[in-house]
């Protein structure tokens, strides 16, 4: 949502995140993205040459976690198995705890060297993430010796096993902080040294890329003491994309809701929900408040839609079209607080939009408040359209209750 309370970020695929990490000197497994089974086999052969391994992992690339649980991650011991698993995973609809029941279509896979190979020591897994601590206004490294499992579960079961380290923006991450982290992870020798390099390179990636999150879970210590990013999630601050055209080009629209992408073309901030009352509001805070009042009136919000401060006729029309694409919508509440933009002009825009769209089969409630609210209501009431109007939020809420009954 636009308001910055949910600070908007562009999600990256695992293979893209690892590419950015590698560019900044973070050790990652040898791997390549593939769109077809042939590409997957070629990738596996190339990885065998450069990394000298005989085992691979094939991983579905979708913007959701928990892929292993849904069968989207498979270890392969032979090229035949690579072929088989790549074939199965590509094109499958992967359902994970984070995708919702409808799942997500897998269009890309990552073929990687398997880093759980036998050696002189047991491999170990850690957790590491970097994100903004809003209260402090500083970046924070969060880490745990209990990696490879759901960190929320770690936080619940063993909160003392989660450590944090704030970074002073004036000087950046200091070597003593990296040492502290490595010691808290109980590392020594070669692995300790590798971890220092690893942490500092991950932090540099975060800052250089304007990331809003890097989460590496697990970070693995291999049997020969290498420290590698085994699985990675990364997102980038949308507001900073203008200085990273290379990262902006990584945006995968196939991973986003098509209606939301469509809305974005008209500068409408739309998030699909699952209720029966559509809404369109100017301003994100008021939009959330409007969703709340729909609920209090006995309905359920079908969406979040911020038309922006000006709420002009063109945007209102596109907003109606987008809301009407949702078959669950039984009524629409338009809530505009006219300040600089006068309510009579918004009202005229609503009338024009309604006529342009033609027949609208669900009742529409228009609540206009602020400058020239009475004039606005009059225009709606005299338009002859099947639109109910209100001035106070309270009256709008009652109208929602009425049309639903």
């Amino acid at each position, binding site marked *: 949502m636009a308001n910055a309370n949910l600070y908007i970020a562009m999600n990256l695929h695992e293979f893209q995140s690892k590419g950015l990490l590698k560019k900044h000197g973070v050790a990652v497994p040898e791997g390549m993205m593939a769109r077809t089974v042939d590409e997957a086999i070629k990738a596996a052969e190339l990885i065998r040459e450069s990394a000298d391994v005989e085992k691979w992992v094939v991983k579905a690339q979708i913007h959701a976690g928990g892929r292993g649980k849904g069968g989207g991650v498979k270890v392969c011991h032979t090229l035949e198995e690579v072929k088989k698993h790549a074939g199965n995973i590509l094109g499958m609809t992967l359902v994970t705890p984070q995708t919702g029941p409808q799942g997500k279509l897998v269009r890309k896979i990552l073929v990687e060297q398997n880093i759980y190979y036998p050696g002189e020591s047991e491999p170990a897994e850690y957790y590491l993430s970097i994100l903004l601590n809003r209260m402090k206004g500083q970046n924070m490294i*969060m880490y745990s010796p209990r990696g490879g499992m759901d960190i929320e579960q770690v936080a619940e079961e063993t909160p003392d096993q989660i450590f944090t380290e704030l970074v002073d923006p004036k000087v950046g991450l200091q070597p003593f902080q990296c040492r502290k982290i490595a010691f808290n992870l109980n590392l020594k020798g070669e692995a300790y040294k590798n971890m220092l390099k690893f942490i500092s390179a991950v932090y540099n990636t975060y800052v250089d890329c304007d990331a809003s*999150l890097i989460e590496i879970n697990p970070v693995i210590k291999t049997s020969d003491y290498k420290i590698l990013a085994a699985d990675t999630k990364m997102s980038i601050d949308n507001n900073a994309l203008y200085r990273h055209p290379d990262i902006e080009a990584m945006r995968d629209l196939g991973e986003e809701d098509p209606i939301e992408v469509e809305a974005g073309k008209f500068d409408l901030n739309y998030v699909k929900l699952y209720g029966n009352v559509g809404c369109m509001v100017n301003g994100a805070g008021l939009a959330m408040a409007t969703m709340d009042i729909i609920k209090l009136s006995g309905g359920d919000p079908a969406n979040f839609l911020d038309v922006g401060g000006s709420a002009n006729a063109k945007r209102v029309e596109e907003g109606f079209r987008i809301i009407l694409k949702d078959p669950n919508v039984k009524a629409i509440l338009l809530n505009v607080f006219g300040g600089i933009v006068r309510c009579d002009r918004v009202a005229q825009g609503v009338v024009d939009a309604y006529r342009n769209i033609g027949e609208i089969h669900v009742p529409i409630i228009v609540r206009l408040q602020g400058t020239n609210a009475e004039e606005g209501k009059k225009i709606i009431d005299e338009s002859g359209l099947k639109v109910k109007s209100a001035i106070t939020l309270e009256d709008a809420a009652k109208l929602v209750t009425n049309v639903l009954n």
Partner: protein
Amino acid sequence: MSILVNKQSLVLVQGFTGHEGTFHAEQMIQYGTRVVGGVTPGKGGQKHLCLPIFNTVDDAVQSTGADVSVIFVPPQAAADAIMEAAEAGIRVIVCITEGIPVKDMMYVKEYLKCRPKSRLIGSNCPGIITPPSTKIGIMPGSIHRPGTIGVVSRSGTLSYEAVDQITKAGLGQSTSIGVGGDPIPGTTIREAVELFMDDPETEAIVMIGEIGGNMENEAALWIREHGTKPVVSFIAGATAPKGRRMGHAGAIIGGKSDTAQAKKEILRECGVHVADSPADIGMVLVNALKK
């Protein structure tokens, strides 16, 4: 009375000659705000809206004695504009600009720590208004009325909704301040609440919050210890979906306390009067004042 800005405030507009800057400067002047000039690098010496343009904030402060600045420059240049205003000694810097990268605001925050005389409001906020004649921002002046209610909000149009209900209830505002919705705000809700508690002519405070972050909880805990006036609150977003996040780190930082329900509970425990419906803000305020 008021907090931070009043009739004596001399206001500078950064990004004066741009589309937004021009439009809102006109609106502010119409409302009665003492706009004394603006800054557009390269246009120094010229006039705009019959007021002088300066190349730098420093020049403008030297010539006009401005102590408040309002920023309408694009997001790519906004952090720089804030720092320029602070370096020139501007007391209250109001940044309207939306979309400033978080990293830039992190550096701005550090920069301002070393310049404690300057207070930033925003970014990504509607500004600050002390009715009847001092409007520094983009809010509609007409819905405000001078009075004794201090309003602080993270959101623009939702704060207009609250202000309007206050005015329609026959009350008015001492000052209404929008702290903005960005992850790193210049002024927090708690700081605004403190200023209102210290203002002898503010009788009660309306605090409009929303899901995400921890600012409302921080303010609530401060109110429990130090509050001397009734505080009324609404928290938007009870029905908002949980962010479709990929990672889990954010959930641990926010904990369970950044949902609307959790915030309301904390506010109530701290003695704040909470309106469950955004339509009831005015009514809850009137009832709180009777007690």
